[in-house]
């Protein structure tokens, strides 16, 4: 207690400039992002829900892809058949599955539950699979869904509504966590998904900054996909495609009321592996493939693209990278008082989290957020420390070892040829 009292005495003795520097991390990396953006998002008018017939104005194809998902396919297809706006075409793709998935698809095909089935004997990666399916689709819109996902009854109806706007090339769905009960780490991810997707993308939408129509669940205009030549090789194909669509001038929408549930990793190891992949792919795509977006002299340079690049650079990369320096600086500067300072930072962040969570819950219809409430404390450590460390490690890894090129998620043969 001594330490805390002393520390408080010490802090209160600082000048306001010093205090500001003390909480710089919070002030710079948390408050603007959450407080400002989310506040806007929460009170900005959300897209209006349309009558059902609007969703039928354009035909919809759904591509269900999976690797060794023999059990998931029938379940996913059934949830598609249950839609208030059922798809006009269902294309199932098994990417080199070895667990009898082709037989499952054959049966689904025979029963007439799906319209096309494709499978390969060799794994070719998600992009290649999506590409061939995309060409089989004959509909105006293509909804892309992982076969381990399941949809709300209204999901497809809502996700296709924004396409009434001819400028919209793709719409991201609101992916939420189905297995929040599985573990603490899963519950934290559930909160994370609520905040970053329901709230974050909603906020991004306001500023036309939606950058990732997730591969788990999103919809695209077929003509737009054809224009960008489908997916490119390598991981992070969803981000890749979205960035390319943006590059071609398409607007990307988001529907918080088009909810899709997916299972998240329920162990730290699995989560770390997943995030390493995501973060590496993001770095690779943003700062290698699409680095031109930050070059004002590049012909394709646009401010809107620069904005989300900077946002990512500042809040994700810098936010993560600065953490160790900040902590070292705290201890160097304040010695033992650093603990107390960190603690107070944490308390501050927790208050922010609490507030943000409420905003996110407001932005996420149809999802029971209350059960996640007790996990906010854990989420604070998860997001503030753990994820930052993971990200940092991932960035370092990518920066130094270019690991995204060896990702097991993409077959080695693809990595081998893709080069830089």
């Amino acid at each position, binding site marked *: 207690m001594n330490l805390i009292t002393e520390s408080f005495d010490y802090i209160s003795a600082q000048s306001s400039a010093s205090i500001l520097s003390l909480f710089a991390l919070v002030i710079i990396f948390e408050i603007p992002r959450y407080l400002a953006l989310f506040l806007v998002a929460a009170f900005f008018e959300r897209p209006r829900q349309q009558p059902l017939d609007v969703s039928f104005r354009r035909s919809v194809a759904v591509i269900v892809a999976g690797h060794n998902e023999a059990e998931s396919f029938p379940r996913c297809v059934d949830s598609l058949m249950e839609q208030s706006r059922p798809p006009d075409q269902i294309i199932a793709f098994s990417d080199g599955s070895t667990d009898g998935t082709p037989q499952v698809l054959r049966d689904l095909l025979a029963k007439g539950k799906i*319209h096309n089935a494709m499978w390969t004997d*060799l794994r070719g*990666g998600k992009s290649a699979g999506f590409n061939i399916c995309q060409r089989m689709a004959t509909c105006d819109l293509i909804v892309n869904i992982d076969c381990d996902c399941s949809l709300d009854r209204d999901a497809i109806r809502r996700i296709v509504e924004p396409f009434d706007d001819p400028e919209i090339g793709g719409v991201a769905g609101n992916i939420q966590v189905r297995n929040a009960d599985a573990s603490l780490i899963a519950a934290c991810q559930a909160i994370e998904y609520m905040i970053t997707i329901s709230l974050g993308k909603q906020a991004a939408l306001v500023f036309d900054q939606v950058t990732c129509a997730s591969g788990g669940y999103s919809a695209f205009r077929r003509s737009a996909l054809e224009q960008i030549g489908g997916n490119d090789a390598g991981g992070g194909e969803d981000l890749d495609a979205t960035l390319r669509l943006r590059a071609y001038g398409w607007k990307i929408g988001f529907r918080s009321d088009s909810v899709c549930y997916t299972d998240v990793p329920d162990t730290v190891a699995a989560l770390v592996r997943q995030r390493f992949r995501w973060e590496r792919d993001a770095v690779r795509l943003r700062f290698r493939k699409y680095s031109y977006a930050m070059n004002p002299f590049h012909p394709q340079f646009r401010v809107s693209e620069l904005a989300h690049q900077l946002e990512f650079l500042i809040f994700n990369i810098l936010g993560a990278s600065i953490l160790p320096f900040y902590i070292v600086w705290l201890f160097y500067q304040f010695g033992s008082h650093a603990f107390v300072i960190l603690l107070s930072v944490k308390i501050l962040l927790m208050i922010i989290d609490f507030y943000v969570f409420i905003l996110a819950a407001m932005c996420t219809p149809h999802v029971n957020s209350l059960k996640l409430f007790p996990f906010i404390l854990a989420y604070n450590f998860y997001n503030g420390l753990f994820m930052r460390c993971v990200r940092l490690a991932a960035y370092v890894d990518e920066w130094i070892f270019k690991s995204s090129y060896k990702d097991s998620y993409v077959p080695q043969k693809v990595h081998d040829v893709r080069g830089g």
Partner: protein
Amino acid sequence: MGNNIAHISGSPSGGRAAEPLHVLIVEDSPVTQDVLKEMLRAAGHKVHLAGDGRSALKAMNAENFDVVLIDYHMPHMHGSEVVREFVGQKGEGSSPIFGAITADPAAILNDREQIRFFHTVFAKPFEFEEVLSFVESVRAGKSSDAAIAARSGAESAAVLPLSSEEKEAEREIAVDATPEAESLLDQDELARRLNALMPGSAFFESLEQSDDGAASTSSDDPLEIIRQLRPGAQKALEDMLASLVPGSENLSQIKDVQQEENGAAQQVTQVEEPAETDRPPAIETQKDLTDRLDALMPVAREGSFPAEQANAVPAGDEGTDAPEEDAEAEVGPADYSRAVLIAEDSPVTQDILKLLLSSSGYEVDVAQDGTEALKMIKAKNYFVALMDYNMPGLNGTEVIKHCLEEISGRALPIFAAMTAEPSAVLADKYGEKFSKIFAKPFNFDEVRAYIEEVAESVLGGVANDGAAITAGVLAPAAAPTVNLKEYSADVARGLESYGVSARVLRWPEDIGPAGFSVAARQYMAAGSDFDAVLISERATVHDLRHLWTLGDLHLLPIIDETGQLGPKADVSIPSLPRGVVGRLLEGTMQEFREARQSVHIEVRQSKETSEKLAASIYVRKRVLTPEYSAENALGFTYDCAQEDEEILSAVTNLTEQKLLQRKFFDRFHVCNGCQSTHLNVREECFECRSPNLSETTLVHHFRCAYQGPLQDFQQGSDLVCPKCSRELRHFGVDYDKPGIVINCGACGASSSDAAVGFKCLSCGQHTDGEMIRTRDVFQYELTEKGVAFIEEGPIVIGGGQKQLKFAELPLELVIELNKSAREFTETSRPFCLMSIGYPDRRALTSEHGFRLVEVSRSQMVENLRNYFGDQAITHQGTDYDYILVNRLAVENCRANIETYNEVALSGLKIDLNPRIASFGPEELFG
């Protein structure tokens, strides 16, 4: 008992204008009422109905009737009581003419008190024509001013205490029809004359026998003579007498005879001596005799001509009490004059004779062997018995011998023999008892002609033909027609070209699409067999269906010279090397012959398609095998010359009965529209069901993730990515081929897989692979039970549940049953017949040996007899044993069947597993 009295047979009303009669029908059966009423109305009479005696009396008091027909047994009041009361009130003079209707004529006839009121008695079931004739005769009498008419018939004439005027009147009627002087003829005289008329005639065989019998003295009794005749003979006699004997006789004598008959004592007579032939024919009033004989006719028609009643009886023994009516009397044919017995062990000959004789209107029964024939002759009156001389059990003459020894006092059938060795028959001591011998191969037409001849002569015109028949009695049959002989030779030459001598039924000469040729029928009817069926021109199984209709022809091997029958033939000659044909044919025929002989006779004779098929499978190595066949819409065909649809329905049946077991053969896809299996199987587009599919390899360009069909990449000999325009240089390095894609040429859809669809070649219908129906086809093999069924007959299937057939019961048991039945009717003393079957007998026999099983069986029956004591009468048969237990109700029997079972098996070394079924009076006689 000869009982009821019919009419005067002269034509009704003799051309005079018909005057309607008032007829009262007193009858409690509405059906009989209605039919009689309708019939008599149609004949122009006024008919009134009364349901019982009281209303009849009321009606008779209110109105004058010419004729009253009364049911003798009515509730409340007997027919005779009605009449007595009426006559008592009004006096006989003004009575109508009464006729009695009864199912039990003996009851009336035995009661003089009653009978005297009735002018005639109709025994149920009577023919309505008799009634009509009776009424007509009354009308005739009336219109010629006769007081009372139709005092015809033996009994009534004998009974009625007629006044002389009445007698006079009656004669007048008779004279009216045939106006001749009457004369009396005593019975001895009649008998002598009859014998003189027809010396040696088969009709008089029994009469002749009794003539010589020590105990018999009644052979001179004309009524006896007449009664011993078969109905046909009676008719013949009637006609004969009508033409020969003028005058009349004292009718009362006939009644006396009737009385004697009723008091008959059983007697066995055995005679071999010929009849007297030296008596001169007498002259009688033709009409009178005609009338009397006519009166007998209904007896014959109803067939109630029981052995006991007809027994020889000392003449003049009037005082004998009326005997109880033995129920055995009821075992008689419906129409004796048409009943023919065939005793023959070849099913084919049986069938064809039965077929042809039945189609000529005869009632044909078939006996498998001599023993059965004897049993059947004992149980039923036959008019002709056509017997194979060589039969298992008793041979033909032994049957006759037994008949002569064991049946007395009633007519025996005319015996005709069928034999391949006439000389053997003639050499036999009893051979001469055959009226006719047909030497095999005989011409069936001869048999038919002979039977028709006998029938005709029996039914009329015997005077001339009798001698001719008699003459033929001992003579061997005339040689078969040249045709048949030639035919037999032809048949035997069928396989000559293969160096094999065998009698073959040839397609299309002998069996054609329409059936069998006349010659083949005659040949088979003559008792000749075939060894095989020879197909020398294209034939379908449908064409050969007739093989399954006649006897056991379906068990003959089918030799196919055309090769068209494929697996349906047993030997397909074109597929054989020339050198082995003869040997193979002989071997096959031998195998079939042996197998055929192992088939139980009842199975060989079965008319059940499934049983025929089972037998066919048995002789054909016990397996029914399907083979692929493009010619058959089913896609397969069974190696059995029956239509496959028939086979399929039959095998289901047999498999259910566990006679066959099945083994999977193949699964056929069947058109939903027309059931054809002739389908084009194709890979189709899932979208549009077009088979216009092309399969191409998928190419995956790693660099840009483009994945598409090979043709997207092909530029000349190079592979160039359509997305990134890079050249694909190195398989496995910058691209690979991860799978295939199927493109539809019709709708452009692509997929990794194709659907399967079926297009019917027969009707054009398309069916998706998921929707197509399938049919599993099996090979069938006879089970052990199936083999047992074939070899041992239907007992294997039926077990205890088999319906009890009287014909199967031994005579002694039938007699006992009848006694019990009468007791039951009269005193309600219950009885119960138990039949004991042994479904496991075959298995037991093979396990423990025949002797032990049979001994155990005997012991078991003995156990039961001891248990039931005096009340039980047991009988051991071949397949079943029987126990008749008096004073035991069938319900009690069923309730205690477990106990009986225990008792039966106590002390036995082996478990016979008997199946006891019980039958009460209702089941047996109801």
